[in-house]
């Protein structure tokens, strides 16, 4: 009987709308992560930190004055909140990136991870601004006065996917531009990239800030879905989910991020729907981490290029490259090999 109850949720439109809104949001973040990590080789384990900065900025500036007991509450309109979130996240990404990007290999991972955790701790402790562990339980949403609630859900779903498409178009543009080729050249062989005149440090910082600004723009979408902001929302789980999706879909592949997110979230959400008798509750709770873990281990082991590979995105282009494409051509042959080496250029070059 319980199983039947669970299945009936499958017929509920709000369940699907909510799930697809979440998939859209995660897709956008994961595609951005791909620009940074898949193409730029900057393995960022703190993307949730940027999301937190964007989310808090948006909420603080758009909350109606006086509703929460905080020192700053200007009550800006939604569009201003989005711009503020993008700007602040971009600035923070710049400030974090300036020192963090000097670190290489696993040190960059650790630094970004540590920064994300520091932001979360600050959100807990700077309670005059963030409302402490309680957080904010209402979030300004656009079009609230124009649509009734069910229609609003649909509108927000459409807005989310429009945003995801925008991010997709952006990454598509990047992948075909000299900028994108320089990015991948830098990832694969920094000395060669340098010798080709690519300003590596500037390129890294530029990318990190670009991703920051974009994540700041995605943050409000996440809040429209969650309608709640508190430090516990920004635990590392978000980052790990995005990373698993990226690896699963195919790191450095453009559409892989979307596919990975779709497969991962559909699977874990449907598992959550199954209603189990209490004696199997432990196993049921364990399925989520087990699934994420097994997927990561197995994909890396047996199909390290992911479901859709980098070749799928760049194979055709790589053949078209000419000498004028500079860095892209210099490393074109390397691109055909597995892309997961990350920063291993040093070992390879010796």
């Amino acid at each position: 009987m319980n199983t039947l109850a669970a299945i009936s949720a499958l017929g509920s439109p709000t369940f699907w709308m909510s799930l697809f809104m979440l998939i859209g949001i995660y897709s956008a973040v994961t595609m951005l992560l791909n620009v940074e990590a898949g193409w730029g080789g900057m393995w960022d384990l703190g993307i949730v930190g940027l999301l937190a900065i964007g989310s808090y900025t948006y909420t603080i500036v758009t909350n109606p004055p006086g509703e929460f007991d905080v020192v700053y509450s200007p009550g800006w309109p939604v569009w201003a909140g989005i711009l503020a979130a993008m700007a602040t996240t971009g600035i923070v990404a710049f400030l974090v990136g300036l020192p963090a990007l000097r670190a290489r290999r696993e040190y960059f991972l650790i630094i970004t991870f540590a920064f994300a955790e520091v932001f979360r701790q600050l959100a807990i402790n700077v309670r005059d601004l963030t409302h402490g562990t309680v957080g904010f339980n209402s979030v300004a949403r656009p079009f609230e006065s124009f649509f009734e609630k069910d229609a609003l859900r649909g509108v927000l779903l459409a807005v989310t996917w429009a945003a995801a498409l925008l991010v997709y178009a952006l990454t598509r543009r990047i992948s075909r531009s000299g900028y994108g080729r320089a990015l991948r050249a830098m990832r694969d062989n920094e000395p060669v990239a340098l010798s080709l005149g690519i300003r590596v440090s500037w390129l890294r910082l530029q990318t990190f800030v670009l991703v920051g600004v974009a994540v700041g723009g995605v943050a409000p979408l996440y809040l429209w879905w969650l309608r709640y902001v508190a430090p516990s929302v920004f635990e590392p789980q978000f980052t790990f989910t995005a990373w698993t999706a990226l690896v699963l879909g195919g790191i450095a592949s453009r559409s892989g991020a979307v596919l990975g997110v779709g497969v991962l979230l559909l699977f874990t959400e449907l598992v959550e729907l199954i209603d189990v008798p209490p004696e199997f509750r432990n196993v049921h709770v364990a399925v989520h981490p087990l699934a994420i873990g097994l997927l990561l281990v197995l994909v890396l082991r047996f199909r390290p290029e992911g479901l859709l590979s980098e070749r799928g995105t760049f194979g055709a282009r790589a053949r078209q490259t000419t000498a004028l494409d500079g860095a892209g051509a210099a490393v074109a042959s390397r691109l055909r090999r597995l892309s997961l080496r990350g920063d291993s250029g040093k070992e390879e070059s010796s």
Partner: protein
Amino acid sequence: MRRIFLPLLAIVVLGGVVLSCGDDDEGPVKLGFLAGLSGDYSEWGPPSQDGAEAAIGVINDNGGILGRDAELVVQDNLSTPEGAVTGYNRIREEIDALGGVESDGAVALLGTVAEDEMPTMCPACGTTVLDTEGGNYIWRITASDTTYGIISAQLARDAGYGRVNMLVQQTEGTESPANVFKDVWENKIGGQIGEDVRFNPGLDSYQAQVEQAFSGDPDAVYIGAGPQAGIPILREYIARGYTAAILVSPDLQVPDIAEVASELPTGRILAAQVTDDFGSPAYAEFAAAHQEYAGKPPPTGFYETNQFDQYIVLALAMTAAESTDGPDVAAQIYSIVNAPGTKVYTYADGVAALERGEQIDYDGPSGSIELHTSTGNLVSPKVAVNHIVNGSYTEREVIELDASLGR
């Protein structure tokens, strides 16, 4: 890319098409149970669910709701706000009312349930946010953290303490009563706060924090923590031989903690907790139902009676409204639980009285359920002082809240 977006869009559209399947008034009445079955609140999960299942059993044994069976739709919220939102979204379409919610979930869902016109019961959330923001679609049938903070201050005042230190875990559920305590203790009672030590949970030891919290020779230390941090803190307190009294937050009034503290002299730990009305006829029925549906006698201190009461109240409200629609049910809640009306203690009596056309005033095993109609909070939660005797919390006396300490 079309390969991916098109199927996704197709599924969204399909989802929309299948939209009207779930809407039927013939099947069972579905009552949601959204609680932390895993994560931080998992200690409370199983006993809470037992209490809820007992209520469903009682309802169905007495003819169900409006002639239909009641069914519990269990959903884990992972003890996180995000989990509560996703969990709620999974079940919101099929359920007729919601229960089981804890503080984090209630705060996160506050706007959503009101918008959905979803009658929501909060059997175990203390959060001070609900002091002012509930009342239309969300009702709290347990004491507020405000009550807990005040009662701790009152206990400290009555014990004649002058200087109290604080040791508080930085989570919403533990900071909320602690901050009320601090406010009342300093501003209403004029007591002194020495050290105020805040810490993050999840550490291997809290020795430095305990040392600091007990420094400066305080008369007592207010400890607000979950069981996981509470155990090492109490072990450290015992091992180092501190003598200051301890005021504990409600989260620490669980069997595991009592067991650890069993070697301390009685009265060293001052605890106050909402208490059940053990003498009421409702409690006997509850205990019997618990035995029958959960296969064991009810524990105490896990909000099990509140979990039970929330569904009885919802079921009675549905009966009175002759409908399971949110607004109709919500409109009946106050008339079911508040005076005037025939005092009823069981679901069967309530239904019978309603069928006779009488107005009823339900009081369950959790005690007198009278709600402020403006905020949906209990008018006078029943609070008792607990002592640890032989390794378990034992109720000593029911105490009255000093009204002059109210905020």
